[in-house]
């Protein structure tokens, strides 16, 4: 006979009739104090608008500063990318700014490369030494022998420095290791890459199809905002993913596809749409070429054929194909972002682009917009680069990737092995990218560095790559520096600025200052005629007629809307050779490549092994934030996702620690097992960016497993040289004490 709380209340109230009075007497008369609402006092004395750099989306934020201390960071309501809201990382900038493990002083290496043995030196000594080394390389091997690896907005100053120095070898892993395949696939089809922010109008989509893209876990603020808006407006999702992602949890259709077979599914969908003439005929007639060739090509790409490959029932393929077409033109096949999976990624992106074309979503509301942007004049009086650099040696000798339109970061690495490429790379400048995790085959990266004359790393934290550098420059965080004016192609034309919120801590310096100081020491001072980046930004803005004071106060300037959709009267341009959407690609045919996407069945994992897939968590940006103690409060290490039935079969317990060993014997650190219903039985999944080895990352070191270390095999995309990385297989071993 449970006594409910209510019973007690009744009894106690009744038993002591006077208690109400007594109670009234108590706090009111005896209590000399009331109950004021406490204020935690985190509002700033000043609130500074700036741009986030926890990832590369560049959301507008408002940083609250109290007594010189950043107390909190919130979204800037005036900024089109944040609209006042932030992803978890945005708030976590404080954890980066006050990370006790930050690089604090310039370092010069004293031990062997990779020994992480450094001496703290003065800026002058470090800058003089660096300039001397870079000039030596230029003297001996020519300026092109220096490559810049860069990720992040602040890299612009080093790109400028390198161009002035005489090299154009700037590689970002965000191309060949990430979104490059997608850009090429869309470029070939529509004549323009998708870019960042992706030129998609998610919020107005009625059906959103995700091919392996895990929006919501992959947390690009604006995109996730629009994704949620679309759902709240009743949009339906088709999610194709071997894993029951967060997005899959919201989908009308979750298709747990066999990894590596997406092209078969895409072709079968197109088969259904073309056979049943569900496509947008007027749109295609007006804007596209190659429908006939495509129709013929698709004849045998039946749902029955694809079912065998993908493991998805043919009826379901037909149903979802019709469903996708049914919502046209506001039916968006999301282009994805990290797409370096299987080595046929540009062709998969082509298939996705073609499917978008069939439903007529490109240039339409709920599909793709054609971005607009504001112009900001260049800084006046900067001389033209004197030297016309040789093309990048980013491919092996005799190899061509005809559609690569950016430099391949891993290609520059590989060119550091003497005699393997058009010419040798002898020096690296690494800005804000941890090549040890950003590139696959980290052992190859270490071997390549053996051949270098000089490595300079500029970073905020002692990422692994800084341990191999000869000189390490501690950069000020984004909250402590100016960067260039941010001009972002978007739905709305706007510009925004990053300005310092607090003074640089320790002996750190803004990248702009470092680049200028190096330029001075290499007789390139004329290329940096501004006093500092703040002055540079001011002058550029003034030259463009912008209100500098207002921009500093608001952080952003949004210009009037211009048409970005056909519905708004925009006449879409397709800058392909035919000036049309190219379903059948003459460019590819001319290059001797498949003019229509070809499906190649993936290699099967050997018995007892699983295909290793990697992805994102909303709380972190690769390994860049995994040392951020504040963010780690809600996600402190990655877990290995393994199908629960398989785990049970193997006697593996949820939560126990395991090692991963890949097909080449590469072994991960111990990682916690997540035995889950949420993944297929033939693959496992890791969030990228864990398993740090740098001693300086005192929080992150040894947490979780590093997927990059297990990516000892890549499959190169013949169109653009991207490194497909989902081609590694791992076996799982119990951690033995």
């Amino acid at each position, binding site marked *: *006979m*449970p*006594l*409910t*709380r209510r*019973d*007690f*209340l009744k009894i*106690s*109230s009744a038993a*002591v009739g006077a*208690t*109400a009075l*007594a*109670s009234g*007497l*108590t*706090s009111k008369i*005896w*209590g000399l104090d009331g109950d004021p609402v406490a204020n935690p006092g985190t509002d700033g004395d000043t609130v500074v608008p700036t741009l986030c750099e926890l990832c590369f989306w560049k959301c507008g934020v408002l940083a609250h500063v109290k007594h010189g201390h950043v107390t909190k960071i919130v979204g800037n309501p005036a900024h089109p990318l944040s609209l006042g809201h932030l992803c978890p990382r945005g708030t976590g900038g404080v954890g980066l700014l006050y990370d006790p493990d930050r690089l604090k002083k310039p370092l010069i290496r004293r031990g062997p490369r990779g020994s992480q043995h450094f001496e703290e030196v003065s800026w002058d000594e470090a800058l003089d030494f660096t300039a001397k080394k870079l000039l030596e390389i230029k003297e001996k091997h020519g300026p092109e022998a220096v490559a810049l690896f860069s990720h992040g907005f602040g890299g612009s100053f080093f790109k400028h420095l390198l161009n002035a120095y005489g090299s154009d070898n700037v590689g970002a892993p965000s191309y060949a290791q990430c979104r490059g395949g997608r850009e090429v696939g869309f470029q070939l089809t529509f004549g323009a890459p998708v870019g960042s922010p992706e030129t998609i109008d998610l919020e107005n989509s009625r059906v959103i199809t995700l091919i392996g893209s895990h929006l919501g876990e992959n947390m690009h603020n604006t995109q996730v905002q629009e994704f949620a808006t679309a759902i709240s407006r009743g949009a339906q999702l088709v999610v194709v993913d071997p894993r029951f992602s967060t997005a899959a949890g919201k989908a009308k259709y979750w298709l747990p596809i066999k990894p590596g077979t997406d092209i078969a599914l895409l072709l079968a969908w197109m088969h259904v749409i073309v056979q049943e003439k569900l496509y947008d005929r007027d749109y295609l007639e007006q804007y596209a070429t190659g429908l006939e060739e495509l129709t013929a090509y698709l004849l045998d790409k039946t749902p029955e054929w694809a079912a065998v490959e993908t493991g998805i029932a043919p009826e379901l393929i037909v149903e979802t194909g019709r469903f996708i077409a049914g919502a046209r033109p506001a039916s968006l096949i999301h282009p994805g972002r990290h797409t370096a999976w299987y080595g046929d990624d540009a062709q998969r992106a082509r298939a996705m682009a073609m499917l978008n074309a069939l439903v007529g979503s490109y240039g339409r509301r709920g599909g793709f917009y054609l971005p607009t942007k504001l112009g900001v004049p260049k800084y006046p009086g900067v001389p033209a680069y004197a030297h016309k650099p040789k093309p990048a040696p980013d491919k092996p000798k005799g190899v061509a990737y005809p559609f690569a339109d950016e430099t391949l970061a891993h290609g520059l690495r590989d060119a550091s092995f003497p005699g393997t490429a058009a010419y040798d790379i002898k020096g690296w400048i690494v800005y804000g990218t941890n090549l040890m995790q950003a590139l696959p085959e980290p052992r190859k990266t270490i071997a390549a560095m053996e051949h270098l004359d000089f490595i300079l790393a500029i970073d905020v934290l002692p990422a692994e790559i800084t341990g191999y550098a000869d000189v390490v420059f501690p950069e000020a965080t984004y909250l402590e520096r100016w960067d260039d004016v941010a001009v972002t192609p978007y739905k709305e034309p706007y510009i925004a600025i990053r300005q310092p919120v607090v003074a640089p801590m320790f002996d750190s310096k803004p990248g702009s200052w470092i680049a200028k100081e190096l330029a001075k020491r290499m007789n390139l001072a004329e290329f940096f005629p501004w006093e500092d980046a703040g002055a540079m930004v001011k002058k550029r803005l003034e030259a463009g007629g912008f209100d500098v004071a207002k921009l500093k106060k608001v952080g952003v300037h949004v210009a009037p809307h211009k048409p970005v959709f056909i519905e708004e009267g925009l006449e879409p341009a397709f800058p392909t050779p035919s000036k049309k959407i190219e379903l059948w690609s003459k460019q590819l045919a001319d290059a001797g490549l498949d003019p229509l996407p070809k499906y190649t069945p993936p290699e099967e994992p050997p018995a007892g092994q699983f295909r290793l897939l990697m992805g994102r968590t909303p709380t972190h940006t690769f390994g860049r934030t995994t040392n951020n103690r504040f963010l780690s409060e*809600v*996600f402190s290490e990655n877990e290995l996702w393994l199908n*629960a039935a398989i785990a049970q079969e193997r006697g593996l317990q949820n939560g126990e620690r395991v090692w991963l060993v890949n097909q080449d014997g590469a072994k991960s650190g111990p990682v916690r097992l997540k035995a*889950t*219903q*949420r993944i297929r039985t033939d693959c496992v999944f890791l969030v990228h960016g864990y398993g740090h080895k740098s001693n300086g990352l005192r929080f992150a070191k040894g947490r979780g497993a590093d997927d990059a270390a297990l990516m000892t095999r890549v499959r190169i995309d013949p169109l653009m040289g991207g490194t497909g990385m989902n081609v590694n297989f791992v076996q799982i071993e119990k951690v033995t004490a």
Partner: protein
Amino acid sequence: MHRLPVETVTTRLNHAIDPSLHIWGWEITLYLFLGGLVAGLLILTAALELTRRQRPTSAALQWMPLVALGLLSAGMGTLFLDLEFKLHVYRFYLAFRPHSPMSWGAWILLLVYPAGLLLALGSLPETTLRRVPLLGRLALRIAAWSQQNRSLVLWTTIAVGAGLGVYTGLLLGTLTARIQWNSAVLGPLFLTSGLSTGAAFLLLCKLDAVERALLLRWDLAAILVELLLIAAMLLGFASGGASAQLAGAALLGGPWTAAFWSLVVVTGLLVPLAMELLELRRHLPLVALTPALVLVGGLALRAILLAAGQDSGYRLLP
């Protein structure tokens, strides 16, 4: 589809709250035990006097109210130790919150002292009271009053004692968020257990034969009632709905089952019951072991219910 989640992931990891509640430890165990014991001691001391219609002759009983107050102070000491903000302890006495058993308890504790003191002053011999430094005269006057109004003093002591004993159980029983404590049995159970431990404590002291015999009978009765109450509690768990089943799980096949049955039921109740029966029937001389076991059982009862109950929150339910 399915009603119960197959997997639940939470980001919450608050100290002492997650993954399972663990806010009260040995301090509260000891406090609850001593509270019950003191309640038992006061009630039984008064009851003996009422039954025998004469002031206690044995020194143990004369001093017992003061001993009880000492034990209560120790209990309040451990309660104080458990407070996370000790400087704010005075706040208990700047408020009376009729809906809060904790508040009732705080005030009852304050009532126990004068009651116990009155009882003691009326029991102790005059020679002892004369020796009270400075306040000897006052003590004698109060003692005289206590003796003149003996019946009032005794019944007041019993009432306050009962309040104290029931309160320790009610304190947990009204915290219905802990589904295992959500039982009306808890108040009477803790009171009965308090009486039983009180009797056991007294039986360890030097008493006369009549007192001993009375206490032995009363303890037997208390143990029997306690067994019945425990049976009622467990039956309630076993026959109730999902939440009751879950509440009982810790004691019926869960992590605390072995400790509960061995320490509380067997060691603390069944063995003493058998030994006390033997003693009464066969007039065997009393050994100290029996009351000691009762005390162990009483302590274990509180420790186990406190630990098991804390973790029986709604989070365990779908």
